[in-house]
């Protein structure tokens, strides 16, 4: 019996590598291979067209280019503002949806519906709602608040990226909200009740008891949202300005530029995006470890 278990375990240990190898090989080849290939080309190394020397010209070019720096600032603004607003509203939504009420199941279903609606559909919906002649503008004209499409404030293709942020907030409230709601439901309301019965007011009970409980979930979901909103392409491509464009859009524009000399710069921008995401992954791993230890 004992011998059987031992050999079984030995076999398992051997088979770990067999179980992992195919998936790891594919991810290494495609993901790391893609990054490595992009990195080499960002260094101007492309033997296929006779470029055999490494240099940092592309990085030097983009970091001295005002357009790139403006894109970088805009992209941070989009990611930070979207993540902040979405997190706050998601926590508020989760608190709103927590207690038992009639029709809770159907409300929860509609709340999670956005999880599976692709970003692209949401972005087109936001476009048709908030463009100058969009549905919101029509309703405001009907209410005599504005007279013509031109009176409607620019919310798409605008310098503050309002439409893009609305789209992200719309999509990410349920994403963060569902995670927070699950924590709230599994923890229950006992701790808060104790705090309340000991004299804490609603705000104190939330601030001192509930918030610390949900914070790990909020933070880890926010990191994922920030990384996504920082690197997503189709939403700013559809709803944003062409100049300054969000960083992924700028990288795509450079990549598809007829001038082949712009390609190493496109790759350099992709590397900047990958680098910032790597920092976020490290933050994510570190945070999840810290919270697990607690």
């Amino acid at each position, binding site marked *: 019996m004992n011998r059987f278990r031992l050999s079984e375990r030995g076999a398992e240990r051997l088979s*770990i590598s067999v179980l*992992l190898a195919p998936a790891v090989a594919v*991810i290494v080849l495609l993901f790391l291979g893609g990054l490595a290939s992009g990195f080499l080309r960002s260094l101007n190394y492309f033997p296929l067209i006779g470029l055999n020397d490494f240099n940092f010209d592309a990085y030097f070019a983009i970091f001295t280019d005002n357009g790139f720096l403006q894109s970088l600032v805009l992209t941070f603004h989009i990611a930070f503002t979207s993540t902040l607003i979405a997190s706050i509203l998601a926590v508020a939504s989760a608190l709103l949806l927590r207690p038992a009420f009639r029709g809770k199941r159907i409300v929860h279903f509609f709340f999670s519906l956005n999880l599976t*609606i692709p970003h692209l559909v949401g972005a087109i919906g936001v476009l048709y709602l908030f463009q100058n002649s969009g549905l919101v503008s029509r309703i405001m004209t009907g209410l005599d608040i504005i007279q013509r499409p031109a009176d409607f404030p620019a919310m798409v293709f605008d310098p503050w990226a309002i439409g893009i942020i609305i789209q992200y907030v719309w999509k990410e409230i349920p994403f963060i909200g569902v995670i927070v709601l699950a924590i709230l439901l599994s923890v229950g309301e006992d701790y808060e009740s104790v705090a309340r019965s000991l004299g804490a007011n609603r705000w104190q009970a939330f601030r001192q008891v509930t918030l610390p409980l949900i914070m790990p979930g909020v933070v880890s979901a926010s990191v994922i949202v920030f990384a996504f909103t920082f*690197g997503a392409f189709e939403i700013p491509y559809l709803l944003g300005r062409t100049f300054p464009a969000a960083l992924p859009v700028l990288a795509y524009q450079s*990549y598809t530029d007829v001038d082949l000399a712009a390609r190493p710069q496109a790759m350099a921008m992709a590397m900047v995006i*990958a680098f910032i995401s790597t920092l976020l*992954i490290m933050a*994510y791993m570190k945070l999840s470890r810290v919270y697990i230890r607690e």
Partner: protein
Amino acid sequence: MTTAPAPLPGIAPRTIGRTTLRWAGIMGLLAFLVAPMVPLFIWSISFRWFYPDILPSEYSARAWEQVISPTNNVIGATGQTTLIALLCTVLSVLLGVPAGRALGLHNFKGKRIVEVLILAPIIVPGLAVVLGIDTMFIRYGLSGNILGVTLVHLVPTLPYMTLVMSGVYANYDVDYELQARSLGAGRWATQRYVTLPAVFPGVVVGALFTFLISWSQYVLTLLIGDGQVETLPILLFNFARSEPAIAGALSVVFILPGILVLLLSSKYLSGDSAAVGGIGNI
């Protein structure tokens, strides 16, 4: 046991106010979440909808006829999107379930590195990777065809499936297998009658969402498909600026699988399951 603080006299009217307020909040929230779908649906059945009309002056099924008609290749694109998503799901399940088992059940040297490697493609944006992949794929003839697009879709889907399965196996007690083996069951019989029933719901939910992640990819298909592979999101984007009626109808087609999946899996889908973690990719 939830013990609310004892109600004090005079607090009753305030409680009613709170309930009303809560419902106002819930309705406002749901209205915001549904709002972008409203113009899409109206556009899909409109014929004339000029500014400043709040509703179309004439309705028609024109957009839906266009969707069905062969000229716009919507049916072809739907078939191609489905084929790619199915291929991608099969590959992700075949590779991701074993890898998830290794990560969920075992501790081994270098596990942390493998975890980072699996997590990284979920967080690093597709665009940052796909420009380099495009360079490789062009060289090996994988650009502009379904095979290449399927492979590049594995970048977000395979790590997702692996993570989901790693979560499923972490909650699975491997002793059941040892018991079955010691009672004389063979390797295959053990997998078939003990392991599979235990992890099957997880595999199904993971596979459904894997399908959706591939189904909704835009920029990976745009670059690797190179104009040759036309999927629904590619068509949808092309119509978004010029043909709102057709874009509206296409959007309805495009979101249907997601709603179906949610209906099928909502029972299993709580925020603490790994299934939600990767949905940022849809």
